[in-house]
Structures are given as C-alpha cells and as structure tokens.
C-alpha cells in the first residue's frame, strides 16, 4: 500500500536531511505509528505521502502509484484516496460540523444529495449524532477532532494519515479518538499515525516505527513507545 524506497529529504537551507535513506513498507489494512522526538523527520513522512513535498532522492509509492513522478495536475485526484487528520483539526470556523464534512464532499464535485445521505451517517459513526449543527467553537477539542476524522473518512479513503491527532487533547479524550481510529482501521483502512504520545502507543500495541535524526532506528510489529 505504502512504500518508501531509500527516501532522502533535505529541505532547502537545512544542514542535515530530515529523512536520510529511509526504506519502509506498509501493507493494506495496517495500523502504524511513527514515533520519535520533535524534528526527527516523522512529519515529513506525512508530507511526502500527501505529495506536499517531493523527496530529494528515492521513491514514494502509494497505492501502487509512484507519487514522486506524479504530474502536478493529477495530485488533487490522488489526494481523494487519502484522508488526513491534524493536531490543530483544521476545521472551517464559520461552518457547522455538518457543513465542514459536506464541504469536503462538495469541493470534489459530489452533489448536495450525496452529502445529505453520507454526512449524517459518518457523523453518527464518529459519535457526533445530534451535534451536526454546532459550530467548531461550540464543540470540545475531542468533538472537533471527531469532525475532522469524519471529514477525512467521509470519502472512504484507502489510507488515513494522522499527524499527532491527540496532540491537543487530554488523555481520556485522546483514547476516545484512538478508539475511533481503530474502528476506522477495522473497516480495512490503512492508518498511519505520527505521534509522540507514549501512553497511546503503549495501549494500542500496534506496529511502531521509531525515527531518530531522519533514520529508522526501530520497526516493531506490536511495539511500545520504549
């Protein structure tokens, strides 16, 4: 599903590469944690998978497609097969929970009728039934992140990328979000999560890939934060 082949990424003006000759493969349906200290290069992986940045060297394969050589006009369509959740939620403050999720559908050309059918369903799935018409500022952090997860998942993507999704949440809320991601993973969606939340990693007991100074130092099938 996801293949990084000898990927090196050096940002302009950076003295050392953020990722240094990294090779890793992730199968369909896996749940993978990328852990490591700040600045270790784990967020760069998310950016590479979304084709927000291109690798300096090496190849990035997603969904059996070479992202590295993808023409720029194909990128939007490619991104529709990937859902994304961030630490800061990235919701539109002037739209309700329903509208935030529907927006993601409408801007890729789905009709309002499709949105009316699919959005309540996915909001129900993330546990926000009855709160469709609340604005982000009327929701708690955990609820906002649920909206973000609903938006990421509403297209039924093959891959869900999560960049420190629990970074702004208290431990209990974090665990609820993790349960949600776990449920999404059980539908067959590959989940890649970047985090430095040791609690969560230890509880989930999933594959853990540890990165330090741009290199993979550990890759464990049922790992802990360590």
């Amino acid at each position: 599903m996801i293949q990084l082949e000898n990927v090196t990424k050096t940002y302009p003006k950076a003295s050392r590469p953020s990722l240094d000759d990294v090779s890793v493969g992730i199968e369909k349906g896996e749940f993978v944690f990328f852990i490591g200290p700040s600045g270790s290069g784990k967020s760069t992986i998310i950016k590479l998978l979304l084709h927000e940045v291109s690798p300096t060297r090496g190849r990035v394969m997603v969904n059996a497609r070479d992202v590295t050589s993808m023409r720029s006009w194909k990128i939007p369509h490619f991104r529709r097969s990937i859902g994304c959740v961030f630490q800061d939620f990235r919701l539109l403050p002037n739209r309700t929970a329903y509208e935030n999720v529907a927006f993601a559908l409408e801007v890729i050309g789905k009709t309002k009728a499709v949105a009316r059918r699919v959005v309540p369903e996915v909001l129900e799935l993330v546990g926000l039934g009855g709160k469709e018409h609340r604005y982000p500022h009327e929701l708690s952090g955990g609820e906002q992140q649920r909206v973000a997860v609903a938006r990421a998942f509403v297209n039924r993507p093959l891959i869900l990328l999560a960049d420190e999704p629990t970074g702004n949440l208290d431990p209990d809320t974090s665990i609820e979000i993790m349960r949600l991601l776990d449920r999404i993973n059980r539908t067959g969606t590959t989940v890649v999560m970047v985090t430095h939340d040791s609690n969560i990693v230890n509880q989930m007991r999933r594959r853990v890939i540890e990165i330090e100074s741009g290199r993979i130092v550990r890759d464990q099938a049922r790992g802990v934060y360590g």
Partner: protein
Amino acid sequence: MRLKYVFNEVLVGLWRNVTMTVAMIITLSVSLTMLGASVLMYMQVDRMKNFYYGEIEVSIFLREDVTDAQSTAISQAIDRSPLVASKSFESREQAFEKFKVLWRDSPDFIKSVGPESLPASYRVKLKNPEQYKTFAAEVQGLPGIQDIVDQRQLLDKVFNIFNSIQVMALVVAAFMALAALLLVGNTIQVAAYSKRREVAVMKLVGASNWFIQAPFVLEAVVAGVVGAILGFIALFVSKIVLLDGRLQALTNVLTPIPNGNVWLMLPLLAVVGAGVSAITAWITLRFYIKV
C-alpha cells in the same frame, strides 16, 4: 451546485474587499477607456485617409504676372507627365467664387478681397498621390509658378497630430493598465489570504486546482467586465457630448465616427479587460496557492 458555489464565492469575495474592488474597477475602466479611445482614433484616421486621399490634389499656383505663354507651357508640361491622372484649371474668378462660398459667414472679409488677390491655379490629380515629389520635380523649374502645394502633406500633418494623440492615449492606457493589474494582483492576494483556511482544506481533500482557483479568477474577470462596461459608457458619453455636441464643427471636417465603431468597443474592451485580469489573477495565484 458547483457553479452556484463558485458564483457565490465570487460575489462574497468582491464584497468583502469592496474598497479594493472599487479601486480596481475604476483603474481598469480608465485604462480601458483610453485603450478604446485610441483604437477608435486609429480606425478614424484610417477612414479619413481613405476618404481624403481619393480627393486630394496638387495645386500649382501661378504668379500674378504669369503670361499666357508660360501658362500654356505649364499646362503642356502637366499633360506630358505620365504621373498625372487628371488636371483642371482654376481661374482667379473661379477661385474667388470658391472663396466666397468658403467664407460666406464673413461678408466683410469677402469685400476686402477681390478676384485679383487670389492666384489662378492648376489642380492636378496624381495617379498615385505618393509620387508627389517626382511630379513636383518635373514642373518646379518652369517659369510663372508661384508655389506648388501638395494637399497630402497638409493632411499628413493633421494625421500626425491624431497619431500623437493616439500614442499618448495608449501610453496613458498602458500606465493605468499597470496600476490596474497591480491592484488586481493585490486583490487576489488579499482574497487568497482571507480564504486560506478554505483553500488549505480544499487542497487537503483533493479539490481540483481549477475549482480552487476559479472563484479568484472569476473575481478578477467580473471586475474586468464591469470596468469594460464603465469604460464603454465613458467612451459613448464623451462621443455624444464632445464630438456630436461641442466640437461638432470639427467633426464635419474630420468625418463623423460611426456609432457602429463605438459599439464595437464594448466587446473589445470586455474581452481585453476580462482576459488580462484573468491572466493576472491566475499568475498571482500560482505564487499564493501552491499545489
């Protein structure tokens, strides 16, 4: 649905930043007015050239003390020239008759002038008006000639004035266009900034580039079209007020501007205004909305 979304975004975008929108539209319309005026002038000079060049003559004015023999010699020289299409003689009396018609509004002036004050002349039409110099050289040396006047040279002076006005209008149009396009670029930047969250989400969920950019580009296009319409109105009003009104005396000499030509400016200005602002907006977006 998507079209409705896009148009709604355009209106909201233009209204959010209404002072900038007004500034953009005003500069665009001034620039387009200048452009339209200069195009109209170009078309007009062309029409006038066609109209007058068919009519123009070379006048060979004879000296007051010209003898019949000299006059005949000149006449024969003209007839011999292969450059000449036709020739006519205008006696002093005929010249005076013409003069009286020309100045019929000032009888005092006519009274002070008699037929004896005006020279007799040969009026020569050349096959090709451009060959004036060669023709002039052929007859120049003959005795009894006071002066040879090429009407084409007089006309060219007038046309040169028109050309300079036209160039000035184009220069003003170019500078205003520069200002207008900088304003368009700035408006688009502000719009892109105020919608940065939406744009980020759209990119994230894989909205196509045209869908992200269309509302911004259309904002510029709407401004361009509105500017063009205002510019057209300015042109039309100034045609009616100036050329058909105050300067009517001048228009009689200058051949009137047909309304059809003025109407032609509407689509022309609209296409130029919309096209140029769209391209500016699109180029601006390349810098502010990266994939």
